[in-house]
């Protein structure tokens, strides 16, 4: 079942003197529950594409459909609500809220959804236990290693049961051991919860483990399987 589709998406950055054609005629179809890696050399347009799929930016031309409804024409407020309910994000630099503990970071997304405090706490704790990171509950980001922070970030991304989790180079700042632990976690969540994962990487180890690979070069999809 299709969850996400792009139609002739182009992105041209025009803020500099020379316009950069970062994405060229991207046509993509992603089904529910897929586990997709977007690969390609640096500058090939991976971040740009993920930003568009994550509704953080708008294409210069073309349309992007989520469950058959076009979101390129939606307002900021609608998109914010959409991201809150349907999307989860994992960032390369983890980007947890530095003043909140791991548990609070996970609760935060639920707070934004208006989940009552008691339920929030319980769900966050359960999820941490499920991911095997319950020992980190009361640690602040600066008291955790990168690998630990990124696993908390996964918990934050999935706690509201999103349809899609988008991750831009989630392992780039991790060593290979922590990187593969993270991939295990993402795969597990993909299989158990049927959450669609779309992540970018230029790391061989990561790419090899993807079930579907989209290869970008100079803003074009050069191969797909």
């Amino acid at each position, binding site marked *: 079942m299709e969850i996400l589709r792009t139609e002739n998406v182009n992105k041209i950055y025009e803020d500099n003197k020379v316009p950069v054609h970062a994405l060229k005629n991207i046509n993509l179809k992603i089904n529910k529950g897929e586990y997709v890696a977007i690969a390609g050399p640096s500058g090939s347009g991976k971040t740009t594409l993920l930003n568009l799929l994550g509704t953080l930016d708008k294409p210069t031309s073309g349309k992007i459909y989520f469950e058959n409804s076009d979101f390129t024409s939606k307002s900021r407020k609608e998109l914010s609500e959409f991201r*809150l309910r349907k999307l989860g*994000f994992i960032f390369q630099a983890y980007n947890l809220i530095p003043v909140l503990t791991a548990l609070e970071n996970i609760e935060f997304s639920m*707070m934004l959804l208006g989940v009552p405090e008691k339920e929030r706490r319980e769900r966050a704790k359960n999820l941490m236990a499920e991911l095997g990171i319950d020992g980190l509950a009361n640690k602040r980001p600066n008291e955790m290693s990168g690998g630990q922070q990124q696993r908390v970030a996964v918990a934050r991304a999935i706690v509201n049961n999103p349809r899609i989790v988008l991750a831009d180079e989630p392992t780039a700042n991790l060593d290979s051991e922590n990187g593969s632990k993270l991939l295990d976690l993402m795969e597990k969540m993909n299989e158990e919860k049927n959450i669609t994962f779309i992540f970018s990487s230029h790391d061989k180890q990561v790419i090899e483990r993807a079930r579907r690979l989209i290869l970008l070069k100079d803003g074009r999809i050069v191969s797909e399987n």
Partner: protein
Amino acid sequence: MLVKLAWRNIWRNKRRSLIVTGSVVVGVVALIFIDGLNNGFLSQMLFNQVNLNISHIQIHKKGFNDNKVIQSFIPDKAKVERILAHNKKIVHFSERVIAFGLVSSAISSSGVYILGINPDDEAKITTISKSIIKGEYFSGKQREIVIGNKLAEKLKVGLGGKVIVLSNRPDGSIGSEVFRVTGIFKSPNSEFNKAYIFVPIKTLQNMLGLGNKIHEFAIITTDYKVTEDVKNEIRNQLDESYEVLSYRDILPLLIMQMELYKETIYIINLIIGLALLFGIINSMLMAVFERINEIGVLMAIGMKNGKIFTMILLESLFIGLLGTALGLITGIGLTELISIHGIDFSLFAESLENWGIGAVIYPKLTLENLIAMLFMIPFITISGAVYPALKAIKLEPVYAISYV
């Protein structure tokens, strides 16, 4: 949770938050202190006048206050005495004869107000008896006179010195008498020390041929706050031939000045408030710019503008509340502490004494101003965060996330 987040965010940059909180504290303390000082200044000015001579309420024959002619006697002295004796809110009252005349020594002479008083009664009404710096207040002899230090200097007389007092009698002839200086007073009001002399009421009545007629009753009530009430009560018991005046009626300029001051304090508040406002805007802008990346992440994970806006306002509000609380404590503490001994302005004593204040000023707090501050400062800190918060929510998520 938003509250928790905002509170913790403040302490991320401890130094900046403390500096901003500190500037709020300084602002609040300054406001409290300036107000306390001015308020002390004005009420000292008022109460010095009241205590020195005016008293709370005066009764005259109608028109006497504006035109102090010798013929304006109290129409029915006994009746007024009965009324005053029966009023429970009146603590003391005294009789006065007031004339304008000339006092001369062997060396020079000076125009003065001559107050004929009953020394024992007057001692309960005014502070002259306590302001004697040389000699004594009256001892009970007939031709004693108490004069101010400035006048003594001018006439070059000392204790026991002789002076002649001249004044018009009601029939137009001149009355005169020789007095011996028994006491020299020094009040905080240098003008008063130059222009007022005190003699026993009987002596003055004889000198001017007044019999037992008087010009004025001076009254002290239980509290200056009930003055207007007491004034109206007395007024209702007397007919149109009397005038009953409170110190507010007698010192209209001073009262006006106090009212004017209330407006001045608004302007001072405004200036300090504006300085605070810009300080807050500046620091909250910095707080936003330092966190562009994080704000982008918050936007990405679905935090709506309203919540981001509220979060930033809360941060500023907390700083404001903290600063206000500390400022109030410090300001009130400091003002109270200083008001025990007052601030010695001896350097400017000359000019202060011309205003009738005295060299030492005791700052005095007003509840009104404290309450105003309690609302004003947090309001300012919130207002100062509005622009930075707007800046924050106008950020584009992609731009913010990749901002380095």
